[in-house]
């Protein structure tokens, strides 16, 4: 597949750097989430064996979290300006139940990211900060004040639950639920038809600005 010269039926959805950053975020999140789940419930402690045993998991989980927050910060910087929710987005969120049952007539048109994707972005940002803040406290319990530790043991799993819940939905949407979107994040391109039906505003902006169906990510 020649990505340098995409043919007329390929729209660039995500640039190489966007994809690299996304997958670094994804892998570090997956590692940190799975090792975290090992310590969350005795029923999931077998995950600790998969990742090298309880002591290794305890030692490396915080580093996985640190890597996650660093690459997420890069993703945040790249996408923050594209993620602000406008009037259409707020309207979209109120009608999100129509989206879930494939009734798109009732929904405002989406731009490069739809309101669901934007919400996920902000949700992961907020709970990511909470996870890191509480995680640092749990990393060195021997030097942290008791009050912070008592709050962290509650804040960390609560933030993780919401964050993992969001990612379960995100993985479903990005793979099975929306055919074509996974290729957009792996190979970086989508078809014009996909863009026109899922992100019509983004598609039109692009056609207007270039006069062709060839799109470029920002």
């Amino acid at each position, binding site marked *: 597949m020649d990505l340098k010269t995409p043919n007329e039926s390929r729209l660039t959805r995500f640039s190489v750097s966007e994809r690299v950053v996304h997958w670094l975020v994804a892998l570090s999140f997956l590692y940190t989430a799975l090792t975290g*789940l090992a*310590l*969350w*419930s*005795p*029923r999931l*402690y077998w995950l*600790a064996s998969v990742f090298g045993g*309880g*002591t290794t*998991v*305890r*030692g490396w989980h915080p580093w996985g979290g640190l890597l996650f927050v660093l690459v997420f910060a890069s993703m945040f910087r790249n996408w923050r300006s594209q993620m602000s929710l406008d009037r259409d987005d707020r309207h979209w969120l109120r009608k999100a139940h129509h989206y*879930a*049952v*494939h009734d798109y007539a009732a929904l405002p048109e989406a731009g490069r990211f739809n309101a669901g994707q934007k919400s996920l972005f902000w949700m992961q940002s907020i709970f990511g900060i909470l996870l890191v803040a509480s995680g640092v406290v*749990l990393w060195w*319990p*021997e030097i942290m004040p*008791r009050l912070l*530790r*008592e*709050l962290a*043991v*509650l804040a960390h*799993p*609560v933030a993780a*639950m919401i964050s*993992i*819940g969001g990612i*379960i*939905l995100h993985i*479903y949407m990005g793979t*099975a*639920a*929306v*055919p*074509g979107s996974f290729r957009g994040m792996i190979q970086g391109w989508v*078809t014009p*038809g*996909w863009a026109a*039906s*899922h992100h019509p505003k983004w598609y039109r902006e692009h056609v207007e600005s270039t006069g062709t169906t060839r799109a470029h990510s920002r």
Partner: protein
Amino acid sequence: MMTTFIKAISATPGKPAGSSRATETAAKLIDTTTCIGCKACEVACQEWNNQQVTFGNFEGTYQTLPDLAHNFWNLIKFHETELDGQPLWLMSKYQCMHCVDPGCLKACPAPGAIVQYSNGIVDFNSDACIGCGYCMTGCPFDVPKLNPETKKVQKCTLCTDRVSVGLEPACIKACPTNCLSFGTREDLLRKAEDRVAVLKSDGFGTAGVYNPTGVGGTHVVYVLARADQPESYGLPKNPQIPWTVSIWKGPLKWLGNALLIGGILGTFLHYLRYGPQDPE
């Protein structure tokens, strides 16, 4: 010889075999009114457990260390205070309290790292410990300490190795004033009440037993002349497992598991019902 079974295991649901059998309990009584602060118990503990500690600088107190350490499990706390204008010098031996409802065990995520025996002793197993330090937050007495080299948490074992072969704990063996005694928890609580009655008749109206109910009672109980203010002895007034730990290990666990399973199952069911969005 003392027969013991394992009563509770960290991060292990259900009750272990034999846990319901009633066995003799093991407990310590610390009568602070006859403690002379000689530190023989500290030395005996270090000797028996073969531990060495590096001492810091002299801080203007008789106290050996500011706090318990991973390699120092028995500390006499020295407190200077005042009572009705008179100076009062309080000494009390501090170590693991061997709670009936241990917060360390509740907070521990590593199966088998913390066990509670049927005699009431709460013990740490270094081979299963992963060094997360959650027990340090679960313990309302701030007893478990992390060994920075091995990354394992350590504390007083109530000399479970000695107790299991019919010996009394090392600290008790060494006490020259008999302010420390070893026995069943029931006997020692009675003995403590008797001592409190004597103290009261001697004019110590505030004397009492320290056996905090917030953690279900403890297997280390104190007789205090000022039971109205245990803080003066360096003991928490109303120790309890932190509420955040109880929520985390209680309702939140169910909510989290429901969310995890519900999320995975829910997306799958959604796919079966609605299928993919307009396929290409």
